[in-house]
Each structure stands twice: as structure tokens, then as C-alpha cells.
């Protein structure tokens, strides 16, 4: 049976998702790239580290990423969950990961990820997006182009005062 990969946006391009998300109660696959919850990482740290394949962890937006600062080097990707697009905590989580803790690999937005917020997500440090179920991924790509002027520095340093 062919594995059907979902599509995601990564670095502003639509690509096949090379990760699968493993629910807490499912067995760990032998190989392949996986996302697991932070709880699972905490309880099965050794087994997870010993696997082949890349490891990603999913953070709820209530987590202070500074608590896992020491583990960051072990993660190939970090997903931050948007329970609903108008809950803005995940923006701060991503920004702290990228800017404060210097995390350089993939930060992925998951959950209620919509076109109209995607540009803000990028400016806070996200570089991959699992667009919400039922929403067009092509349309979401357009969100990067909606606004091109940025007044303030975020993870980027492209604020207008700097360009004037």
C-alpha cells in the first residue's frame, strides 16, 4: 500500500509532508520521520533518541519553550499548535524559540492554520505550515503576498525605519 503523504507549505512552497504524527496511544514506527507530543518525549526520551528517522515534538501554545531549552538540539522540527487561529500564544512561542533560544530548524504551525495569519506566523519564526483541514493550501500561499510592508522588526530585521 502506497503511503499517502499530506501536503504542507515549507519555506513558501507546497511540498509533501515527510513527517507523520504519532498519537500518544499508538506504537512508535520503526523508522521514518515522526512528530510526538512533549509528554511522550518526556516519558520515552531514550527510545525516541535511539530510533532512526527524524524526530519532531509538538508543543501546546501554553508551554514556555525556555523549559525545554536544553533539549532543543535533539529535535529536528518543532510544531506549535493553534487550537483556534485567534489564540495568539503560539506566535510568542515561535518567536522565543527562534530568536531567544536560537533554534534554527523547522518550526511548524499546526492546528487552525489559515491564510489570513500565515504572514504573521512567518514573521514570528514559523517556516512550515500544515494548513487547516478543508482549507485550500494554494489559497493559503497567497497569504504571504497580501502585505509587503512591515513596520517593526520581528525575527526578520526588515522594518521600515531600517529601510528609510
Amino acid at each position, binding site marked *: 500500500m502506497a503511503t499517502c503523504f499530506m501536503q504542507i507549505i515549507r519555506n513558501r512552497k507546497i511540498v509533501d509532508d515527510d513527517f507523520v504524527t504519532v498519537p500518544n496511544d499508538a506504537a512508535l514506527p520503526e523508522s521514518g520521520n515522526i512528530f510526538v507530543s512533549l509528554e511522550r518525549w518526556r516519558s520515552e526520551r531514550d527510545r525516541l533518541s535511539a530510533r532512526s528517522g527524524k524526530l519532531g515534538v509538538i508543543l501546546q501554545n501554553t508551554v514556555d519553550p525556555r523549559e525545554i531549552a536544553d533539549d532543543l538540539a535533539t529535535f529536528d522540527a518543532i510544531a506549535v499548535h493553534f487550537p483556534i487561529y485567534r489564540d*495568539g500564544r503560539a506566535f*510568542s512561542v515561535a*518567536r522565543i524559540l527562534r530568536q531567544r533560544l536560537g533554534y534554527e530548524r523547522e518550526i511548524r504551525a499546526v492546528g487552525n492554520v489559515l491564510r489570513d495569519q500565515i504572514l504573521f506566523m512567518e*514573521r514570528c519564526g514559523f517556516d512550515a505550515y500544515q494548513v487547516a483541514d478543508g482549507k485550500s493550501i494554494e489559497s493559503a500561499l497567497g497569504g504571504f503576498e*497580501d*502585505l509587503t510592508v512591515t*513596520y*517593526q522588526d520581528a525575527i526578520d*530585521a526588515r522594518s521600515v525605519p531600517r*529601510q528609510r
Partner: protein
Amino acid sequence: MYTYDEYDQKLVRERAAQFRGQVERRLSGELTENEFKPLRLQNGLYLQLHAYMLRIAIPYGVLSSTQMRKLAEVSRTYDRGYGHFTTRQNLQLNWPKLEDVPKILDELAEVEMHAIQTSGNCIRNITTDPLAGVARDELEDPRPFCEITRQWSTFHPEFAFLPRKFKIAFNASGDNDRAAMKYHDIGVKIVDRDGERGFEIWVGGGMGRTPVISKLIREFLPREHLISYLEAVLRVYNQLGRRDNIYKARIKILVNETGPDEFRRLVEAEWEDTKESSLRLDEAEIERMRGFFSAPDYESLPSSDELLGQIRSGDGALARWARNNVVVHKQPGYSAVTLSLKEPGTPPGDLSDSQMDTVADLADTYSFGEISVTHIQNLVFPHVKTSELESLHADLVALGLATPNIGRINDMICCPGLDFCNLANARSIPIAQEITERFEDIDYQDDLGELALKISGCINACGHHHVGHIGILGIDKRGVEHYQLMLGGSAGDDASIGKILGRSFPAEEIVEAVERVLKTYVDLRESPEEAFLQTFRRVGEDPFRDTLYGDVLYADHSKS
């Protein structure tokens, strides 16, 4: 005033185009109301009781005559020929059609205006003193810092979806706060310490159903750290502010729940990491912003304090207007004039399209084309030659904008209430109209002296009723409009929250109740110089409670 460059211009145009696409998706049925609502709210578009309402941003209340003319045109073409100035120094249109809103935004973009962040859980319009730049008591013009803050907060990617809305106000005039700074989520007070210019940072003030006076979180912030510190406060709030209950989501609740000391510790810890980042303001950027707000080309004139004194000492309409509606100016020979939008019988804060046009013309003639909007819902001509006051007065009389009632009981704040607002419990405009007519006698108003009356149509307190010397709050008693009366509030540096003294009144009785309060004050004041608030603070609430609810008779008003 601030002028757009290509970047600012592009930003408002892109925003209008983006909203046009969103409206098209809504009208075609691609977006449901649920999905569309937050998008329209981010462009200041509400659905009110009878129609859509568009809230147009007027950054820190500053308008040019060109912008005012555009507002007139937009009100005439796309609305019903009038607009409503709000306590947030913004303008609301009450009847736009959804399909016209993108056109309105295009028109506004032409004159460097927009409706960005006038709604939604984001950082709202930055507000300040309507006399900024001309007040004798200010340390410096706060508007360059307002503009720096406006730009930083516009489409801030991290703070577009806060737990709740967020309001920032600036005050540069020490104890003479004219911006209700202590009732904002953040109040920034410009201060000097040891010869250095910087800021006091006050956090967690607000009105709404839980009125709170803000707490001093930082006694001195060097000015280059303004943005990095604001960013630290917002990050702490974004992460820790409550999202489980809309009524507990404002930062005032977080500050109260953590306590000011712990809150300060959290902010300072956050700030420690960011203060030396690129958010640090350099002196060149502050100077560049100051350049936009440099003084207009004043004529060099001798001091006009004496002339103003003479005009005021007359006994006609001009003299009274000069006493009540005109204040002295930094620049010799000039005065600042308040245009009263409180003519008896009119809805407070409303201006028609033709009035807007004429106001724009008068601003060009008398005030270097500059106008500012006050949080008390009036307009100001900031730079009028004192020698031209008489002629301006005549023009304003013809326009219905020279009512000499600034600071008087009829100069009230009044929200739209149940006549327009979807959240209202009771009407507020008809009560305001009845009050202005009942107390229309200007001699009586002058005798009452300094008096701030404020009316809200529901607990959301857009009409600032908590901080009125006399506050009126509309409530719903089994489908019937009632009004709660509260006394002793103040929005100034001596901030206090009004007290409810007893049961509410039906609409037919509320104005009578206000009148009884006024009679009691006149009877109890030590001298005509003792203002209402001073008397109330001195004698306490009991005599007022008696007069309102105890049928206790005080001396007849005519005897005092």
C-alpha cells in the same frame, strides 16, 4: 503632522486591496459570517443594531483639513451625511454598505487614513492629549512617540491576537492629564529624572465592567527603550493573559491576579533579554519623528495673554466662549480653541458632512489646516491667532459649533447606546439630549462650574461613566431601559472611580435625579469656587444619597 512616505502609502493600499478580496469572498458565500467576522473587525467594521458601522482611525486624534474634507465626502457619498467622533479620538460611520467599504478604504488611503486595528483583540489607536504640541504645561510634544508606537504596533505579527483589545495612551503634561492615561492598558507618562527625559510606565488600567486605575510598573524608562519595554509587557500579556473568560481577559485582570510586583518581575525578566536588541530606538529615529511634528510657521507676535484676558472680561457671548472654550498657547500671540460638538439637542460628538467641510475650511483659514479630536468628543483648532478669535467665533456660531460649554455639565461624553449599538442595554443619546436641554441656561452651567458628566448605554463603559463626576449607566430591567447613577469619578491624574449610591431610575426620572444631585451640590459647596468633585470628596456620599433616595429636603436652590 506625520506625513506618509511610499512605505506607509503602500501599506494602507495593500490593506484596502486585501479587504476587497475578503469582502468578495464573503459576498460570494465562500466565507461564512463566522470566518469573515474577525477579518472585518480587523478593518474596524462592526455589524450594529441597524447597519454596519465603520470605525476610522484618527491616530492620536490628529487630522488635517484635507483629511476632514475626505471624511465629509465619504460620509456624504457612502453614508447618511454625518459621522460620530468617539472617546478613542476616532470617527464612526453608522450606515455603510458592506460592498462600499473597500471603496471607502481606498478613498481614505488617498489621504493617509485607514481603519486598521480599530477593532479586534490587538493594539488599538494610540491616544494622547488633544493639546499636544501647543500646551504650555507639556514637557515635550508626545506625538513623535505616539507615532513611533503606532508604527511598531501596526500589523505587529506577534500581537495581532491578544487575549483582548489593548489601548495605549501618552501624557506629557504631568498632573494635568488630558488623555485619561490611568484608564488605559498602558499609560506612558513623559517625565524628567536627573536631567534625563524618559517615561513612567503605568499598566493595567481600564473601564468596562471592572474599572481599574493602572499601577506604576516602571518609574523611569530611558526613552530609547520605549519599544523594547512595550514589547516585553505585551509578550507577558500575550502568554499569560486569561483567554478562558472574555470578561477577565484584559491586562488589568492579569496585573491584579499576579500582583503588580510579580507582574513587574515578569516584564523586567522578559525585557532583560530584548532591551539591547534592534528594538532599541536610536536618537536619529526619534529626531526624524520629531521633525514631522515641528511647529507650523507661526508669525512672531508679542504675547497675547493680556489680549485674551481682555476678550474674556467682556460680558457677551464672545467673552464667555473665550473663557470656556479657549486656552492659552505655548506660542506668543496664539490660542487653542475647542469646537463644541455638544450643541443642546444634538447627539454628542456628531458632525454632519457640511459641517466637516466648513470646519476644514476654517482650519485652513485660522489654524494652519490642523484639527485635533478630543477624547471628550470635541474638536480643537490648535493654533489660532488670538487677534482672530472674534472672527473665528462668529464663523463658529454660524456653524453651531461655538456653544460655550467646554468643561461644563453639557460637555458630556456619551456613547451611541441602544439607538445604534448592538451590545447596548439602554439608550444614551436621548438622555444626553434631555440633559442638554434641561440645563441649557449657560449662566446656570457656569455657576455649576467644572463638571464632567458621562453616559454609557451598557457596562462596557464606552461612555466612561465610571469616571464621570456624574456618571450614568444604562441597564436593562426586564426589557425596560433603566439608568444607574454614580458620583465622584475622575479621569484625570487624581483618578477615582464613581460610586453607585442606590437603585436605578427609569428614563423618565433620571434627568430629575441629576438635577437633585446638582441642587445638593450647590447647597453644600463652601463657595462657588469649590467644584462639584471637591465638594463630593469633602462631604462624602451621604447627603447625595439622602437627596436621591431619602427625600430629605435641603435649602431651596434659589437661596444659595
